[in-house]
């Protein structure tokens, strides 16, 4: 605030000592910045999901419809979810690779609910750029993403390609042996 000395009228106030006028400048500026921030935030936050989108819908699904060795893709919060009924061979293949080198290491047991290891329920959005991978594609017979060639194994772990993470786990619970609640 030393430059106030050059201000018209500064000589009347004597030497450049922070005074009442400096305080007013600073206070006005601070209120102005707060005001701009207060206006900007609603203008930015309106872009975020609206309340109706946020009202986190949970869905129930009857998994008895999914035959052994098959999968279904269902929508949860407008995003696709895989429900895969794994065969014993697929589970064995996934367990056998538990300690193989991986980008995002995880054991097969950590990907499923105890006692329900034949059911693999994960987000169906490729962790690279969000495409839905193709069932049984790729050399691990899990999934292969058609967009940029990411390959997932039968525990939906990333094994090859540009995706950085395994297919994400989503919150779900078994209501009965044949019914799951997602969300």
């Amino acid at each position, binding site marked *: 605030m030393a430059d106030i000395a050059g201000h018209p009228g500064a000589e009347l106030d004597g030497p450049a000592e922070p005074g009442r006028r400096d305080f007013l400048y600073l206070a006005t500026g601070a209120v102005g910045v707060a005001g701009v921030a207060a206006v900007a935030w609603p203008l*930015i936050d309106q*872009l*975020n*999901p*609206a309340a109706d*989108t946020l009202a986190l819908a949970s869905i129930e699904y009857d998994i008895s419809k999914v035959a052994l060795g098959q999968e279904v*893709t*269902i*929508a949860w*919060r*407008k*995003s*696709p979810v895989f429900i895969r009924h794994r065969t014993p061979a697929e589970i064995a293949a996934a367990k056998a690779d538990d300690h193989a080198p991986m980008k995002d290491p995880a054991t097969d047991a950590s990907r499923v609910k105890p006692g329900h290891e034949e059911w693999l329920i994960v987000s*169906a*959005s490729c962790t*690279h*750029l*969000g*495409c*839905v*991978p*193709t069932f049984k594609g790729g050399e691990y017979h899990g999934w292969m*993403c*058609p*967009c*940029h*060639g990411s390959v997932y194994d039968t525990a939906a772990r990333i094994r*090859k*390609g*540009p*995706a*950085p993470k395994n297919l994400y786990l989503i919150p779900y619970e078994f209501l009965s042996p044949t019914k799951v609640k997602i969300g």
Partner: protein
Amino acid sequence: MSEHTSTYQPKSAIERWLDSRLPIVRFGADLMEFPTPRNLNYWYTFGGILAFCLMVQIITGIILAMHYDASGAGAFISVQRSIMRDVNYGWLIRGIHANGASMFFLAVYLHIARGMYYGSYKAPREVLWLLGCVIYVLMMATAFMGYVLPWGQMSFWGAKVITSLLGAFPVIGPPLTTLLWGGFAVDSPTLNRFFSLHYLLPFVIAAVVALHVWALHVPGNNNPTGVNVKSKSDTLPFHPYYTVKDLFAILVFTIVFAVFVFYLPDAMGKVDNNIEANPLVTPAHIVPEWYLLPFYAILRAIPDKLMGVLGLAGALAMLFALPWLDTSKVRSMRYRPTARIFFLVWVASVMALGWCGSQEPDGLVFPGGPGPVLIDYGINTVTWLSRIATTYYFAYFLVIVPVLGLRERTLPLPDSLYTPVLAHPPGIPVGAAAAPETQG
């Protein structure tokens, strides 16, 4: 606006009255009178062609917006049924708008290549070049959002893939993606905001174009020799010489444009976009529009998600940095035979990237097998060709351009930009037919 002095003389009392209040007629007259190098070739007509393209896109776009329904439930039907079938001449207006985007990019790529070849980005035209780069980035954003609006499968998955690029950034990525989507996936709110921005950005482009033209009029045009204008005899008034030349080029351009609109209306589109957006199924083979393919190939060439996104952004940043990377004192590549070869290889590398972007990552470049596997893919695959081309793309800007400018042997520059015109074609003796024009 420009350095030349105004020659406008108000002819009537009304013009004099207006000229002392708002000299808008003088402004227009000075633009038309602008001294322009007399040796500009047809590569210099793309500026006019681009102005024409922007106008066509804005007019057809405003009309399409009158019939378009920007909602997840109604967008696909309003394009495929209302506009394409029911609205009078809707098919024609959409055909012009959709193909117009491709024509716009075709022209902008030739315009950029011309600037790079003749060294139009060098001092004192750096700001002109930077504004052009800004326009190009705005064009890509506008085109991308426009491509989402028909809400077909390609629209939807293109939007999902490109917006997911932001998710590559640690910490801020995921909340930023949610902010952009307005939900947990690409959905109706995303479509609505893209429509709003797709309507806004062309006017932002028009404003930057005005700055671009302003920045052109301060130093004046570069020219194919890259030699500065030295006297008034090196120039011609913009009107009628270049208005007519530009108009002729625009007419030729509209013939090509019309061939696409009337005979190949879907040549640039993908059939999957005639299927309504389905968030549960990704089409087997998704690719962006042709004009974004080179960048898409760079993204895919790099096996790491964040590095891939940075590579894509870096490819654009190279264009912005070009005026400061080039160390050569000679502007035009006419007099830089070595630089010319490296530049043509760079053009070829961009085209190779474009081709790679349209292919599957494990597709073959040459018939036969994929060849021995190097790291993750066979050496005869699209992935490795795109890696080689990406390396050259960056090496051109970061190594070749700075080093070559210091080390190459250039050809002697002509005394004036007009000398080579008189010597051309070489069969005609200098001073024979053209002599009368040099008397002054």
